[in-house]
């Protein structure tokens, strides 16, 4: 299952809550304000590093560019809209809104 997160990790518990449920190896996609979780140096960095030990983590390029995020935690994979579509084709989606 592809768990998708669109809320800021510092304002909302969506990321941590999804990570509690998502089984190892299930992919995580950060989009909209969820991409702030990919930022290096943010207070959420430890959370996303732990996530990377168990999950592939993807972040949507248009959303990081829109927010001026340039420094991402190592290991996070940046994907464009085509990559997003591919992920959705390959997995059922759990939108963790």
């Amino acid at each position, binding site marked *: 299952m592809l768990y998708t997160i669109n809320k800021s990790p510092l304002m909302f518990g969506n990321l941590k809550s999804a990570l509690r449920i998502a*089984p190892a190896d299930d992919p995580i996609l950060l989009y909209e304000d969820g991409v702030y979780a990919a930022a290096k140096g943010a207070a959420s960095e430890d959370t996303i590093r732990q996530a990377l030990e168990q999950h592939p983590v993807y972040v949507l390029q248009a959303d990081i560019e829109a927010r001026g995020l340039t420094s991402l935690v190592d290991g996070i994979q940046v994907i464009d809209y085509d990559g997003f579509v591919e992920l959705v084709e390959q997995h*059922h989606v759990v939108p963790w809104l």
Partner: protein
Amino acid sequence: MSEPVAVLMRKAPYGSVYTAEGFRSTMGIGVFEMDLSVVFVDDGVYALVKGQNPAGLDMKPLGDGFPMLPDFGVSKFYVHDQSLSERGLKADDLVMDVEIIDDAGVARVLESCGIVLPF
């Protein structure tokens, strides 16, 4: 037979429209006799707490509706154990009998459904 559906309830009632809309969707999906699981995680568990009385908000008690859903063909209700315990709640505090499941249990229910509708 259509793909099984999960309604994923994660938000508290009354503060937003999500619980009411999740309930309406659940009833609608049930009427169409689709294979449906309703899963309560995080603040979603508050939707099932006994003794809700939102008269002062001029709203209907949302908790009262869920025990009627089996009449509409919806019988699979799952509640996340940790979400309950973190809120000081037990199964006895809920308006109906549900299956209490752990993290992996929630993941398994979602996995078994092709479609997850988040509320």
